[in-house]
């Protein structure tokens, strides 16, 4: 009751030309859950997240968001309040100062005049500065974004998500291009902020250790189908070995 299903994925399939990326995938996610998507390369993780972010449409099946079919959210600004996404570090506009990248999270609420004015005199600056403080970058507000390190850039992306404040956060390999220390740091922050904001989090990861450490539930995909869907501490090493095993070795 207190944990209603916020996302219901119903028999979705997607193929590119003849290649099947997802086939009849179904599962649902409760509000506030932290889900890690794992699976070998090409398993369909990015495809799934792109469908959830409505960047692409499934060939078959439906996704229900807060009880309503995804098509109901045709308005991009309305959708941005529901779902936000963070990818690898190329998401930011490097030529802009950090503050504008953070304030881009407000664009859904702003009209044209306010967004152009903000490039000259940053609007709702306090919100941006507060979220930069929360991700530990209070001294980089006016720095050119491209000059920041990869880890710092991911934190800026997190600060933007804080400003955007969606109910669900999708993360596609958010730490793929970071060294282990930075990666752990960013993941810790991502999961902590999601918990503080009562957000639902779905992240694809290549590291099983991180997935087990920071997430409640692991959903494993392999060749576009659900391989397992278990609580993080119920997953056995056997299952993981089988998940990542190469086809040739199975025989």
């Amino acid at each position, binding site marked *: 009751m207190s944990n209603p299903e916020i996302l219901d994925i119903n028999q979705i399939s997607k193929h590119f030309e003849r290649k099947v990326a997802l086939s009849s995938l179904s599962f649902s996610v409760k509000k506030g859950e932290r889900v890690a998507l794992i699976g070998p390369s090409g398993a369909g993780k990015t495809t799934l997240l792109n469908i959830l*972010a409505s*960047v692409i449409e499934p060939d078959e099946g439906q996704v229900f968001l807060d009880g309503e079919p995804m098509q109901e959210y045709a308005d*991009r*600004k309305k*959708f*941005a*309040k529901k*779902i*936000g*996404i963070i*990818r690898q570090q*190329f*998401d*930011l*506009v*490097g*030529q*802009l100062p950090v503050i*504008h990248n953070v304030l*881009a*999270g407000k*664009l*859904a*609420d*702003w009209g*044209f005049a306010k*967004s*152009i004015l903000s*490039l000259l005199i940053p609007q709702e600056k306090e919100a941006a500065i507060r979220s930069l403080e929360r991700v530990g970058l209070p001294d980089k507000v006016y720095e*050119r974004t491209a000059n920041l390190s990869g880890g710092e850039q991911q934190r800026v*992306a997190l600060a*933007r998500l804080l400003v*955007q404040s969606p109910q669900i956060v999708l993360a596609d390999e958010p730490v793929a291009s970071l060294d282990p220390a930075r990666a752990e740091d960013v993941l810790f922050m991502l999961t902590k902020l999601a918990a503080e904001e009562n957000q639902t989090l779905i992240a694809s990861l290549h590291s099983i250790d991180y997935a087990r450490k920071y997430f409640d539930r692991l959903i494993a995909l392999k060749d576009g189908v659900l391989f397992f869907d278990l609580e993080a501490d119920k997953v056995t090493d056997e299952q993981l070995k089988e998940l990542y095993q190469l086809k040739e070795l199975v025989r």
Partner: protein
Amino acid sequence: MNKLSLAYELHKRKLLTLLLTGVFIWSLFAVQWSTGLIHGSGLATAGQIFGAMFQPDVSADILIIALESSWITLAYAAAGMSLAIILAFFLGIWASGVLASGAKSRYFMKGTFRSVLGFMRAIHELVWAWLFVASFGLSPYAAVFALAIPYGGILGRIFADMLNDVPKEPIQALESAGASRIQCLIYGYLPNVRANILSYVMYRFECAVRSSAIMSFVGLGGLGYQIQLSLDDLQYNEVWTFLFFLIGVVVLIDLWSSQLRRRLAL
């Protein structure tokens, strides 16, 4: 059959290169090198002209004329460029299709505005100058429009191409943060191309100064006009004074542009 077309797809580029190289070599043979290209008595004149290079006329009245006509040349170039930038900004954005929401309207916008830009730059500034002088006489507007139209076409085309080459990821991120097309433009596309377009505009400004000088041969005032007058009088020393002024203006613009670029790169 299939294999053949695949091979064709793979080597399409090389075939084209080969073809173009062939055309180039053939064109070399088409020129009649032996006769008429250089005539004998011209050599002496050439000697005189280049000799004068080391003795430019530096008398006060020539210097004043040179200064004045440099100013006119520069003013035409600056006015022409300003208009060209405004034209290029809007036409370039439309021609890039980044403001279109659907695939169909994007295709339509790109097609239409790219053709407009193509038409503008297909005609050389000198030809525009003739047309304008013929239609509204020797007025500064003729020079300014004659520059603005082809330069607007060139700048707009480059601008549109730069906008189309902006990396997709940041734009997609802005879209998923709820940004509209025009918000994506001002927060994503424009900051991305700003430095490049600025340095290209500065380079084009240099070209515009040279064009503006040349255009004044048509009879519009400026360095070119003075050069022509001096040439008619066989005053090669004066010609060189004006040429050095032209070089000076171009060098100054180059200095200014590299300074601007350095400041933007920060």
